[in-house]
């Protein structure tokens, strides 16, 4: 076999792999466009060194595009390109990274960045340093009243700002309270009339109710309500699912109303679920709360939620043995900015948000470029279910809990080989792909159903991997089953 990757001093990775680069692509189209540009043909003046990568790419115009990648700025990789694309990173940055990952000689090693690259690189790094030095960023937004630590500003001005923030927070809490009262009322009305009518009424009433919650500044409630619209059309058993979700909304509304009676962590969870979140900067400004670890990037998934693209990145801390979930948003068709290479590990600090099962976190400074990853320790099927149950105690609204299943075997539905189409997609009610699939423990007669919505490609890849024996899978274990995201296979990571 080939020699292992050589890592330079200070943990600086020499080159990324093509897979790591591809994981950064905002979407499939960019990934393909990037691969097309990963040949030396269009590139000139390309080079790398000093933690950066640059090159000029001949496009259709007369002037070549100038592409720069900052490989290990304190805030993770950064990209700049003179092309008009709104994708981030753009195909030129991806192509250049792939070219470099492939070890093409056209990317000269060890030079200094040319002037057109250096300006931006310098600015970016200075900004990162300033940010790191500055600590708490300005006045905290009025979110969690009282929790935001006042900065080290000067007296009266600072106090006035804090008071104003306090006032805004109190106003928002009032609006939310009014919103939850309205929500409780509407849920009660719904049950008075009966759910049976919901099938005919369609999405509109839910959209309207969601809009009311947006007005009430409770985006968490709005998002949950919007999801309800799809349930009546989701096939057999929908009344049960709709009742369950309505009941959980009701629970959340009551929780908000009576938050003062709740233990602090549960009250935090309620606030978060309603839609009050702390600013990441505030969270990270508390040096005591930062957790430094080697964080393994377990998986990255994008989902469209309304006009937003929500990217979820799951991490696992090697020393603490703890999971973390990072969220990043992209508006208006843009890819979320946060992109981490699945399977690699980051030496980084992060801070957990309060509540919600202590899972969501904000990523703080990183130290060096991504390191080679490792295979995370796993658990069995029973432990996975128990873990989810424990999580529900802290956050009854949790849909699932991240966990690594060890030594499991994918079991296709018994009719998989005969039914037309792929993975029994024709079976109603369970979304495309996953109907009837299970992940069974290799050594015991227990299994988890695969969550609906899991893509057929992921399932088949998982089954193919199991040709060489039981597999280790990372995913979310929840009430709808297990949603697989990543597998490990002979020490190598396989995104599903």
């Amino acid at each position: 076999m080939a020699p292992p990757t050589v890592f330079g001093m200070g943990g600086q990775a020499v080159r990324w792999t093509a897979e790591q680069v591809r994981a950064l692509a905002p979407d499939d189209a960019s990934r393909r466009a990037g691969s097309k540009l990963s040949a030396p043909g269009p590139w000139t003046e390309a080079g790398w060194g000093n933690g950066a990568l640059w090159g000029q790419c001949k496009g259709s115009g007369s002037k070549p595009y100038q592409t720069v990648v900052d490989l290990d700025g304190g805030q993770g990789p950064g990209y700049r390109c003179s092309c008009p694309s709104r994708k981030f990173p753009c195909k030129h940055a991806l192509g250049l990274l792939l070219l470099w990952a492939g070890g093409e000689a056209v990317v000269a090693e060890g030079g200094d960045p040319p002037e057109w690259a250096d300006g931006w690189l310098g600015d970016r790094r200075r900004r990162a340093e300033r940010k790191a030095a500055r600590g708490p960023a300005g006045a905290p937004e009025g979110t969690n009243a009282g929790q935001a630590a006042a900065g080290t500003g000067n007296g009266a001005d600072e106090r006035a700002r804090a008071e104003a923030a306090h006032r805004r927070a109190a106003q928002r809490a009032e609006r939310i309270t009014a919103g939850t009262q309205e929500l409780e009322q509407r849920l009660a009305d719904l049950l008075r009339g009966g759910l049976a009518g919901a099938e005919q009424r369609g999405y509109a009433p839910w959209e309207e109710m969601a809009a009311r919650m947006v007005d009430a500044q409770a985006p968490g409630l709005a998002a949950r309500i919007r999801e309800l619209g799809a349930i009546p059309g989701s096939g057999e058993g929908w009344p049960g699912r709709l009742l369950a979700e309505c009941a959980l909304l009701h629970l959340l509304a009551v929780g908000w109303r009576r938050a003062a009676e709740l233990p602090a962590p549960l009250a935090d969870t309620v606030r978060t679920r309603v839609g009050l979140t702390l600013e990441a900067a505030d969270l990270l400004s508390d040096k005591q709360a930062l957790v430094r670890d080697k964080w393994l990037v377990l998986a990255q998934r994008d989902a469209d939620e309304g006009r937003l693209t929500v990217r979820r990145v799951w991490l696992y801390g090697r020393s603490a043995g703890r999971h973390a979930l990072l969220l990043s948003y992209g508006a208006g068709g843009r890819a979320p900015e946060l992109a981490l290479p699945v399977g690699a590990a980051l030496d980084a600090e992060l801070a957990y948000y309060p509540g919600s099962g202590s899972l969501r976190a904000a990523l703080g400074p990183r130290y060096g470029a991504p390191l080679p990853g490792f295979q995370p320790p796993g658990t069995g099927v029973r432990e996975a279910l128990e873990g989810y149950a424990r999580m529900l105690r802290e956050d009854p609204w949790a849909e699932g809990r991240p966990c690594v299943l060890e030594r499991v075997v994918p079991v296709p539905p018994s009719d998989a080989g005969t039914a037309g189409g792929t993975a029994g997609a024709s079976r109603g009610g369970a979304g495309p792909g996953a109907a009837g699939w299970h992940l069974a423990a290799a050594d015991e007669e227990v299994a988890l159903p695969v969550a609906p919505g899991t893509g057929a490609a992921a399932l088949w890849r998982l089954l193919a991997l199991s040709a060489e024996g039981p597999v280790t899978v990372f995913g979310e274990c929840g009430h709808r089953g297990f949603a697989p995201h990543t597998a490990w296979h002979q020490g190598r990571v396989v995104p599903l």
Partner: protein
Amino acid sequence: MTVGTGTGRHPREAQPSNGGAREEQEDHGHVEYREDREKRGNHEEREDRGNRKEREEQEGWGELVAAALLGAERRRPPGGSVTALLDAAATETVRRRAGARPAVPGQRPAHAPADGRPPLPGAAERRLAALLADRAPGGAGAASGRRGAGPDLGELLPQWLAEANAHGYRAPTALLPALLDAARARTDLRAETLAFAGPRALWLARYNADWKFALRDGVRRRAPDGRPDETEKVWQEGLFAERVALLTAVRRRDPDAATALLASTWQTERAEDRLMFLDSLREGLRLSDEPFLERALADRSRTVRATAAELLTALPGSALAARMADRARGCVTPDRTGGSGGIAVTAPSACDADMQRDGIAPKPPSGRGERAWWLGQLVEAAPLEVWGEQLGGATPAEIIALPVADGWRDDLHAAWCGAAVRQRNAPWARALIGEPTDPFAEGPGDPAKLLSVLPEEERGAWAARFVAAHGLSEAFRVLGMCGVPWPLPLGRAVVDALEIARDAGSYPWSFSGVMGLAERCLDPSDTERLAPLAAVPDEKEGESPGAGAYWAESFQRLLATLRLRSVMLAELRNEVPDSGPELPAPNG
């Protein structure tokens, strides 16, 4: 749980180590997990009790759902109010979610067969993933319009597969689905892809109806050393494709056994099946097949008869070939009248029943005379060895040079070309194809077909001189006949011709076919010689606008593809360091 909505005790608050509490925890079934549970057969008494309790709870939830569906206006809900109903439903929902128990798995997949081949080098594995990803639906392949300066990855897959199979590598399991999809989409790649994918792909294909084709086409690699009774069983009971595969496999191992197998059921086969089976005898055709083929000449189906006759004519020692030789000798004779020493042709005046039985089609295609049509078929089916003796002991080249009386030359030469290809007769093909520098329009035969009969080195040399003399406009099929990679002289001739075409002011897409071939077939070792061509030249007077830039782009793609091929082959030879992340061993 302290949110004040219900009275339900959270199950996980019980001490997990307590046996009784544990039992109770397990009683909170969850609907989705439970379905499978009920299929389980062997229950102990405790389990029965659990089931009963579970059922009761299921009914409790069902009651809540029924009340919610109906609405409090119609019936008083459990608990007396909608708020109580929502409280109870919330408690019940969380309780059911927390109490979910493992499902019982259904039939597990059978153990996958072992694959003893060595694994791919890491870099080669990543390359394969990239090639397959490019092929995926909506990929950057030919479908996405104008080709840029980058290589067309999908087109490199055949070469990669052939090379990997030559090395005898095992396919990485994670890529088996993509390989099966590729084999499904491209039938031309199917055999090579399935050979590489190996036994585990067949195992995987059993679970997905989309990959059923692999089970049929894969038989080829499973049956060859099958036991006789197994062979008989598949032959008697198998699907058509399985039987074709079986016949081909047996044919490779023991040609006569295959003919015997076919003869055993011949009478009962359908006409279109007979035709396909007969066609599979083409490979490894031998004189001992003659009796069977002779019988097939009397087949009920006209197409079966014609195919049997065609196969017999490819056997120069067959009785049919001898009959054809007799007939042909009667038609083509030395010209004794003019004293020129040429050839006289007397085309047959009728197509009798015996001729028809030997596969001569009586009815000509429109626009051709009957007699010329019959003559052509006769000469094409007659063994070429006849002519030396018949026309005075001359060599093929001498015979072809002879004048032919009464304007029959083109008909006669075209028939000889057909015969040379059918009988794979290299001396005749060589003589008929002529010098590559000859004016192109002259010859009656198809040079590409004749070329296919010649040995590989000769093909390359001939094609090189052909391209040098005629340029590229007619070269596509000729080039397609040459072995890959192209010999250096051929490669240089093609590149020179491309350069000439560019300088003549044409656009590169007029040569996109040849360009594509060159990307796949040029020897990568000659790459750097081409580098200067990739520069964008200054626009010249009278040149097609923008042509220079397009040519530069085409040459850039050519270069990029060649470099990629060279890297790709080095990766498969494990000469490229693996730059992938090295991970500690599992649990290590």
